[in-house]
């Protein structure tokens, strides 16, 4: 249980696939025009991640090393097709608004990266949990970017109007340029927070050294 929580924290915060590892930029930029789309995209990718990790881990001893990438892609695209058909059947409006980005989950680098770096080397259960953790991390990042873009660019959150009729939305943030700018600022904020941790340690070390130096001087 403790290991499970640790893996989750690793995927969502410390080693977030989008904000820290900087993978999977295309869907992060393209599907974050509204929070609803972001959640849909994130969950679809999470489902694919869990099952592809699970099956690649199950088959890891049977797949020859030389053709592993091709084998991974076939497994991943199989699950993507299943998710695509399910979404077409049950959440048609979401399927339409995400459009071509659902089949493009196949070439999402996060999924192939986790297959190669984790699932092909670890046991079945931890691999499935890794898929869940990384998928949730991806979803979290998408929601973060989409929240900024939807509130600033459209004045709404999850379709609910926040500022009333008088608000003139900054359309730029819904446009492609706004995607690059918002993601840039969000990742800068993440780097700032990570730097703060390092800065604190460095300051503590410095002040300790200074104290010691002062002590030596007084002696």
């Amino acid at each position, binding site marked *: 249980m403790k290991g499970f929580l640790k893996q989750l924290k690793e995927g969502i915060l410390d080693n977030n696939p989008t904000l820290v590892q900087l993978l999977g930029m295309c869907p992060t930029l393209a599907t974050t025009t509204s929070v609803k789309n972001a959640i849909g995209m994130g969950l679809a990718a999470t489902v694919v991640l869990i099952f592809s990790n699970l099956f690649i881990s199950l088959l890891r001893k049977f797949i020859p090393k030389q053709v592993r990438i091709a084998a991974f*892609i076939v497994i991943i695209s199989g699950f993507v097709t299943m998710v695509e058909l399910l979404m077409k059947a049950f959440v048609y409006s979401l399927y339409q608004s995400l459009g071509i980005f659902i089949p493009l989950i196949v*070439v999402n680098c996060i999924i192939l990266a986790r297959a190669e770096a984790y699932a092909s080397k670890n046991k079945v259960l931890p691999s499935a949990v890794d898929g869940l953790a990384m998928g949730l991390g991806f979803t979290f990042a998408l929601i973060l970017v989409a929240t900024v873009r939807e509130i600033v660019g459209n004045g709404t959150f999850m379709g609910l109007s926040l500022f009333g009729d008088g608000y003139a939305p900054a359309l730029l943030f819904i446009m492609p340029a706004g995607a690059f700018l918002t993601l*840039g600022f969000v990742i800068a904020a993440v*780097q700032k927070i990570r730097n703060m941790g390092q800065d604190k340690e460095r300051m503590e070390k410095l002040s300790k050294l200074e104290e010691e130096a002062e002590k030596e001087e007084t002696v």
Partner: protein
Amino acid sequence: MSFTDILLLMFGAILVENFIFSKFYGCCPFLGVSEKPDTALGMGMAVTFVMTLSGAATWAVYHFLLKPFGLEYLKTVAFILVIAALVQFIEMFLRKFIPALYASLGIYLPLITTNCAVLSAALLAIQNEYSFVSAVAFGFASALGFTLAIVVFAGVRGKMEFSKPPRAFRGFPITLIAAGLLAMAFAGFSGIRL
């Protein structure tokens, strides 16, 4: 479909609906391999080569293999396999017959299988019900748009190396913001109705 229609389609694919700046297809190599103009051009040329050929190959697979058997829903699986096989084949062909070209493009080729620009060009050509010639022209023109974007951006990044942004913005964030400013410039083309 007349020749002017194909020219208009290509113009639209290169500038108005640029793969990077208006559609976000192929952003990973765009952000990853755009540090120097030469490598960016190499990547762009390799992508152009693969996308033109894969445009033809996936169109043929869809219309002669999947459609007659009612297997349209398998197009994602089939296309990614065709693209992977094609990339592998091109790599072997170049290594054997055109070593000079292999030396300059070789290192980029394996990366292209998972470049979403290639798969999305193939899928869009089917979705928009293009004819064979339009599908190939669309793949070629979209790849030219990709090359244009990545080479221009490499030039911008070269200038950025001499600037000193705040510490939190160094590296990836400032690159994204520069891309955002370029995307604004490209948004100017969206006013053109074809």
